[in-house]
């Protein structure tokens, strides 16, 4: 017995409301963040991740109120990402009640931010979100690059090398999203997940593409992920987090039940 693998429902939050993008383009409304967080906590979620996709920087403060509200009622770890550009952004989110802050695009443009934030607040609260897309052609060795701008721009950086660099700079955890799979419901990109989990010794969360419970199990068993993240399969009531845990536990994966 030992450390359990984690199941993490992810809420995309736009202006204080939960939405979920399909390949980050089409979004549909799935409700109030506090209510959803409470439901997930009751179902046994191991953590909850909030991705703030609010476009206007004027409305950025909204996420702080969301986190404050959730943190007074839900006593499990909360991770928040989206729009984090400066150490000050990290501080505000932590003060609002986030336990971990995910840095995404800003890490690509200013990698020092990862070092600065982890030196200051501790690695344990700095997650680097890696959005990767396959760039190798059929028949070539697999290769993935970092993409920014919701998966539209190739940053020209190898995803596995980037993961190693982020770990060196002080990231405490990596959230690896396959941009090819996000919203497709055909399962995680397991070769990508495994390439990164094998390259680093910090925890890795697999994300992007979950459509059923076996996808979650495969993320752990085949992708070697420490945690698996999913959004729509939970939001729309297809499966509860509890059912997901039972499914993984039945395959010998250690779970908090």
């Amino acid at each position, binding site marked *: 017995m*030992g*450390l359990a693998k984690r199941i993490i429902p992810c809420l995309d939050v736009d202006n204080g409301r939960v939405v979920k993008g399909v390949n980050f383009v089409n979004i549909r409304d799935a409700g109030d963040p506090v209510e959803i967080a409470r439901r997930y906590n009751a179902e046994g979620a191991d953590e909850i991740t909030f991705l703030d996709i609010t476009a206007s920087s004027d409305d950025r403060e909204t996420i702080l109120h969301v986190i404050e509200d959730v*943190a007074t009622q839900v*006593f*499990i770890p909360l991770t928040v990402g989206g729009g984090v550009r400066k150490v000050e952004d990290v501080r505000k989110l932590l*003060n609002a009640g986030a336990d971990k802050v995910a840095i995404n695009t800003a890490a690509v443009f200013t990698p020092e931010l990862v070092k600065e934030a982890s030196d200051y*607040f*501790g690695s344990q609260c700095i997650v680097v979100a890696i959005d990767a897309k396959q760039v190798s052609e059929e028949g070539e060795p697999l290769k993935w690059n970092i993409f920014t701008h919701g998966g539209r721009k190739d940053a020209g950086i190898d995803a596995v090398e980037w993961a190693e660099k982020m770990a060196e700079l002080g990231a405490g955890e990596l959230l690896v999203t396959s941009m090819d799979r996000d919203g497709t419901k055909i399962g995680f990109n397991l070769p990508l997940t495994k390439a990164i989990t094998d390259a680093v010794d*910090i925890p890795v969360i697999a994300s992007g593409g979950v459509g059923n419970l076996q996808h979650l199990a495969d993320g752990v068993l085949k992708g070697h992920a420490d945690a698996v993240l999913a959004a729509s399969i939970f939001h729309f009531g297809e499966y509860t987090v509890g059912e997901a845990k039972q499914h993984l536990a039945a395959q010998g994966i250690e779970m908090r039940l």
Partner: protein
Amino acid sequence: MSSIAIVDYGMGNLRSVSQALKHVAADGTRIEITSDRQHILNADKVVFPGQGAARDCMRSLKEYDLVDVVLQASEEKPFLGICMGMQVLMQTSAENDGVDCLGKFSGQVKRFKDAPEIANSEEKLTFPQMGWNQVFQTTDHPLWHSIDDAARFYFVHSYFVSVDDPSLSCGETEYGIRYTSAIAKDSVFAIQCHPEKSADDGLQLLKNFTQWDGKA
């Protein structure tokens, strides 16, 4: 009316601890996040949290002039150390090339990766240990009331406590090795995980603390 002081020495956000205590404490309990020496000494109970690096924690405690106050409170009243608040009660930590800690208890804080069992292990472990692990209750204690043996709590750490006197240990956890994840002596209870983030069992432990008279 009883009061609980949460010691604020500039190491991280204490709001989660405070919110969780408010959630479980009896109505009318005063819960204060404070750096004030007198408030800490006057409180009925003291919670000593902590996160970040050992060196920074010790430096901050000194800068806030709270070293003697924390040690005194730990002698006099129900005292709960959480995470780094457990580690700095020991003599020394291997973190940051070696840091002298409060020395309340005899023992060291060691790095997981330096443990031979882990260094030579075939199984790949990730660091920090991040997530829900089991706490095996090695002794009875009022803070374990209504919590199942081997219940899971949320952990985030790369260093662990190694006590010289095994009777100090009241909880153990396995992560590559079996280590002391909770210690108890007289009015002190200290735990490596984050009860404030450990859902119902964590809240139960905090509730037990709010009701504890400080006697093991």
